[in-house]
């Protein structure tokens, strides 16, 4: 799969502040990769992602684990000499990967984001206990981390009941597409 020029344009348009996310500015200094705390867990280094985008190589980028492993900590773009907003490029790539229906590089991470947003849609706040339970259910892995879950409950780090926003309609309207 090669992204058409129109789709490439969409990647750019999707991300905020056009001038700041122009990945064509990347000249491969690799500062982003050197700064990234999660490089070991990525299959393609962030600077290589930028280069591949410049070459219009859509498929491997959209299928990569990198676009999901990136947590958007801003360490890369903070030190990027061209001030390229790499995390925002990653945001756009993730959403494009979902839209295009490609095989998701890190399905567990997508699962987490989905459970998180479900909670926000339902309560207006993140209810961590329910997010964790639903995440584990979908992953069909209820027992990994169960000891930790119990410790967190004992330390009252997980609230049993969700706190709900009063004007929940205004939250629902945000998620209505």
């Amino acid at each position, binding site marked *: 799969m090669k992204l058409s020029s129109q789709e490439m344009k969409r990647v750019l348009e*999707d991300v*905020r*502040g056009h001038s*700041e996310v122009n990945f064509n500015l990347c000249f491969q200094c690799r500062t982003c990769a050197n700064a990234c*705390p*999660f490089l*070991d*867990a990525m299959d393609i280094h962030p600077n290589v992602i930028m280069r591949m985008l410049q070459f219009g190589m859509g498929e491997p980028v959209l299928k990569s684990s990198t676009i999901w*492993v990136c*947590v*958007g*900590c*801003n*360490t890369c*773009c*903070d030190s990027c000499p061209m*001030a*390229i*907003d790499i*995390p*925002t490029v990653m*945001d*756009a790539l*993730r*959403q494009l990967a*979902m839209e295009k229906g490609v095989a998701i590089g*890190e399905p*567990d*991470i*997508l*699962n*987490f*984001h*989905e459970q*998180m*947003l479900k909670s*926000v849609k339902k309560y*207006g*706040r*993140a*209810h*961590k206990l329910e997010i*964790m339970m639903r*995440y584990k259910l979908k992953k069909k892995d209820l027992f990994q*981390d169960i000891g*930790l879950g119990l*410790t*967190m409950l004992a*330390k*009252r*780090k*997980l*609230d049993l009941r969700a*706190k709900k*926003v009063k*004007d929940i309609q205004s*939250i629902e*309207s*945000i998620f209505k*597409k």
Partner: protein
Amino acid sequence: MKASLKSKENTYAYFPGCSLAASGHENNRSIYKFCEKVGIHLEELDDWNCCGSSSAHSIDSEAAALLPQRNISLAQQGLPLLVACPSCYIRMRSTHEELKSDDQAKEMYKNRWERNFDQDLEIIHFFDLLTKLDQTVIDKNMTKPLNGIRFASYYGCMLAKPPILRKDKRHTGIMEKTLKMLGAEPVSWQNFSKCCGTYLSVAKPEVTTKVVNQIMDNAIESEAECLVTACAMCHLNLEIRCSLKQQIPTFHFSELLCIAFGVDDHKKWFKRHLVDPVPLLKEKGLV
């Protein structure tokens, strides 16, 4: 505390965020207690919602813009909005900056939230308050100097900014400066600004453990007796994902401020820590 931020009689609107309101009660509580001590009144933003955190911008850009917008629309005119969580702070500030520079988005904001966009809304982080903390306030409130407790100040990714906030002031060194004034001793170390892994702690725990262990190991190597964080998420990850045999306790920055200022209900907070900080505090004669 100098009231040089545009606040009416030292009153601030306050946005705790989901982490502080749920898993980080001790962080939330100590911020309230500290503010009370220095004469700052916090008014929690009525009916605030989750900023969308990392998940909204990851998979739903529209929600990522609208969730912080709703919070901004709830802010009371004329009061600075204090945000406690570094991640929520970046989401809210970026959204505000984007709206400032986009007339069409401003119009949509007005229609959706039935309110004019407040161009001058001041969104500040807890650290912005601390820059106003001067020696007179410390002399007035400090009842328990921190007795040379050696700490590694862990900022995590809060010092890094996206390009849209590139010109924002950085708070590098504020923890060291403030805690030093309160009698603690900062150590010099490498990993002060390494991201803790945030939500990878759930989906890829092995990745978080590796990073957290590096952070903890490096802090211990630098002869720190404790880590001090500015983020409830970092605190949680440092405690739940560290697999090292030797671990030092982690404090929320605001907890140490409260100890120095003689806040008395802090014993309740430490029961919530996974690595018990009480032995260290006893050794230093602080509890």
